[in-house]
Structure formats: structure tokens, C-alpha cells
């Protein structure tokens, strides 16, 4: 029997939402344990770094353009460009480079 698409969508949405709020349901106060505290301190940076590379190189038509966007993005962020500026610079890098590559 074919599943109902709307039931499927609703279940997918609820299951995803549950993962988002599960920690909120459990935690009542900041964790004091030094290891867990340190672990959670590093989690965001590690997750985002893992998701960024090498995915950024694979996302573009030309891997060279993706790699260039990575380098430009790192430099711009290093020197304090805002979220929006870094994003736009990365896009512009790819857009311009892919004229030539």
C-alpha cells in the first residue's frame, strides 16, 4: 500500500522537531561537569567545520572555485567581515571564477 504523502510529511516534521527540542526537555540547568561542559563548548565549531569542508569544494561546478571560496571566506571572516559579507564574498568568488574555469 502506498503511504499517504501528507501523513508522511507530518511524521517527518514531528520526528525532526523532537530531535530539536529533546535537549530542552531534559536540561534544567547548565551542565557543571568540566568534561561535558568542554565537550559542548567545542561541539558547534567542530560540527560546522565538518559540514563546511570538503562539502564546499563539492558544492560548486568547479572544485577550484569552491576551494577559492573557502580560502576567501576564511580570510574575510578572519579579518572580521560580517556573516552577510562573508557569504556574499564566497558567492561572488565562485560566480566570477566559474566564468574562467
Amino acid at each position: 500500500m502506498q503511504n499517504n504523502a501528507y501523513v508522511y510529511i507530518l511524521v517527518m516534521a514531528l520526528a525532526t522537531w523532537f530531535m530539536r527540542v529533546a535537549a530542552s526537555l531534559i536540561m534544567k540547568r547548565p551542565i557543571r561537569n568540566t568534561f561535558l561542559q568542554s565537550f559542548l563548548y567545542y561541539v558547534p565549531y567542530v560540527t560546522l567545520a565538518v559540514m563546511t569542508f570538503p562539502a564546499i569544494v563539492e558544492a560548486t561546478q568547479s572544485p577550484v572555485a569552491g576551494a577559492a571560496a573557502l580560502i576567501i571566506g576564511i580570510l574575510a571572516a578572519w579579518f572580521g567581515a560580517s556573516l552577510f559579507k562573508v557569504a556574499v564574498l564566497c558567492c561572488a568568488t565562485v560566480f566570477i571564477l566559474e566564468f574562467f574555469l
Partner: protein
Amino acid sequence: MKGNREIFAEGYKNGIPIGLGYFAVAFSLGIAARDYGFTAVQGFLASLLTYASAGQYMGFALYATNATLIELIVLTFIINARYLLMGFALNQRMPEGTPLSRRILVGSCITDEIFGITIARPGIPTPYYTFGALIAAVPLWALGTALGISLGNILPARIVSALSVALFGMFLAVIIPPARKDKAVGAAVLVSFACSLAAVKLPYISDLSQGNRTIILTVLISALFAVLFPRTDKTEGGESDAE
């Protein structure tokens, strides 16, 4: 002290570039969703309610293979496990006595990008900020999905290619400034880049889904750094820790 309305506006403003990046990614998600048999209305609804890129892609694929709802639930939990970790990281920054409703509202807004900008923002995570970003970004995500389904591949590939790095640019803007300030974070970022590249190339590990690779590497590398470079300050989630 900023008012809630201003904080919402700040979130909304920061959510717009996220939404533009989402739009491009959602467009390609929509193209896939059409192949899996979804209509534009269904795709719009799915994206509006779920707002999870990899998770949705998997969900659409499961629907096409007629998987059971139990399989859908279990695999959705696994592929979105990083949201669980992100939820813990956000709640870690909320002081004791934060109402459950506030914790749930902040948690409900978690996407990779909104989590990123919320963590980057000094002070205690607030639902006004996260909802500002969510309300700016998610409609574009849903619209992109619907247009991808109904119009197919109409955007020139070069434009899609350029837009697809917007999200990664935002990630860099979140992780690089703290990496400059804190050498341990910088080292963690470099190790993450290296391990992530290795995980894509190595046999067996590369067979795992990207979501699973992300969570395994996140747990291992964060645990390693927690052991090597523990953080002892007790002000986490405090007034104005400018991390």
C-alpha cells in the same frame, strides 16, 4: 539592553542571507522531490514544517521506496542527531530557571545555520532572535522547494553553483573569529577539516551518510579536545561572554 522587538529584527536581518542560501539549496531539493513523486504543495508543506535539508531529502527518498513510518521515524532521528547535540549546546548557555517554554522555543528554531548564528551571538540564546531568523529563512526554504518541484531546472547552473556556497560562507563567519581568538578552537577547526576530508575518502566510513559522518566526527573530535583542552570557566551562558 535591547528590546525584544529589536532582537527579533536583528534575527530577521541575519536570517535573510540564510534564507537566500536556503532558496538555492531548496531549489535542488525540489528537483529531487519531484522525482520522488511530490507535488509543489506537498513540497512546500514539508519544507515549511520540517526545515531540515539532509533529513528532508532522506524522507522524500524513503517515501518513494514506500518505507514504513517506523523506518521514517528511526532514520529521521539518526540523520538529525546533530540537532540533539546542538540543542544541548544551546541549553548549556541558558541559566538555571529558564522556563521550559523558552527552552523549547529556542530548540524549535534549530537548523544548522540558525544554530550557528545563535551560538555566535553573545549572551543567552533568546527565542526572539531565533524566531526572527526562522521567519526570515524558512519561507524561502519552502518557496525554493515548491519552485524546484514546479519549475525544475530553470535557474542557470552557474547561479545555483554560486549560491550553493552561501551557507558555507556563513559557517565560516561563525567558526573563524573564535578560532582566531582561542587557539584550541582553531586547532579543533583544523582537525575537523582534516578528519572530514579523510572521512569522505576512506573506505567504509565514506559509505555512511553525510549526517552520520558529521555526528560521529563531532562527538569524537569534541571529546578529544574536551580532554586535551578542558574549559574551566564557570560563566558559560552568563551575561555577556563574548565568545
